[in-house]
């Protein structure tokens, strides 16, 4: 998210509305927003219904894999502060691009907590959706 925030004007130029979706309690969502200063609106999905609608996985095994534990260990070694758990730690995230006709154009369900698509991959799709002059 911190990598995407500086691009919010670029997303706007691509006629793209970015939303973050969370199942977290609004109190923690507000705290997260203050910590990250994310410029994107936060949509609340407290029952994780939309996570299921979009086919996102819920996996204890993949949430706490060796890769994930190493990721957190490296973050601690860099001096980053880990925050106490705030909700369902087994729910995985993901990114989706939907065009202005409501058709899915990009699907990226995270395989584990550290897995996200590259910005380049998402920008390629969004640029392809722009009208040709």
């Amino acid at each position, binding site marked *: 998210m911190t990598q*995407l925030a500086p691009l919010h004007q670029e*997303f706007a130029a*691509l*006629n*793209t*509305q*970015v*939303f*973050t*979706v*969370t*199942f*977290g309690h609004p109190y923690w*969502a*507000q705290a*997260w*927003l203050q910590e990250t200063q994310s410029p*994107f*609106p*936060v*949509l*609340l*999905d407290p029952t994780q*219904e*939309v*996570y*299921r*609608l*979009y*086919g*996102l*996985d819920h996996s204890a095994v993949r949430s706490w894999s060796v890769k994930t534990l190493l990721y957190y260990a490296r973050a601690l070694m860099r001096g980053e502060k*880990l*925050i*106490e*758990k*705030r*909700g*369902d*730690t087994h*729910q*995985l*995230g993901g*990114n*989706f*691009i*939907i*065009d*202005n006709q*409501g*058709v*899915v154009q*990009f*699907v990226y*369900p*995270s395989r584990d*907590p550290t897995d996200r698509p590259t910005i380049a991959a*998402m920008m390629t799709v*969004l640029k392809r*959706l722009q009208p040709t002059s």
Partner: protein
Amino acid sequence: MTKLAVGQRAPDYQFNTLAGESVALSDTWRKGNHTLLIFLRHLA
């Protein structure tokens, strides 16, 4: 669980926002905008 695929119609949904508003994904599409949805994990 059904997995979404490129080319399918996206499920619409009426959300409440953290700012206290109500937003449907289809509102964005009707305005001619594409949507990038980022589903977060737990807020740590």
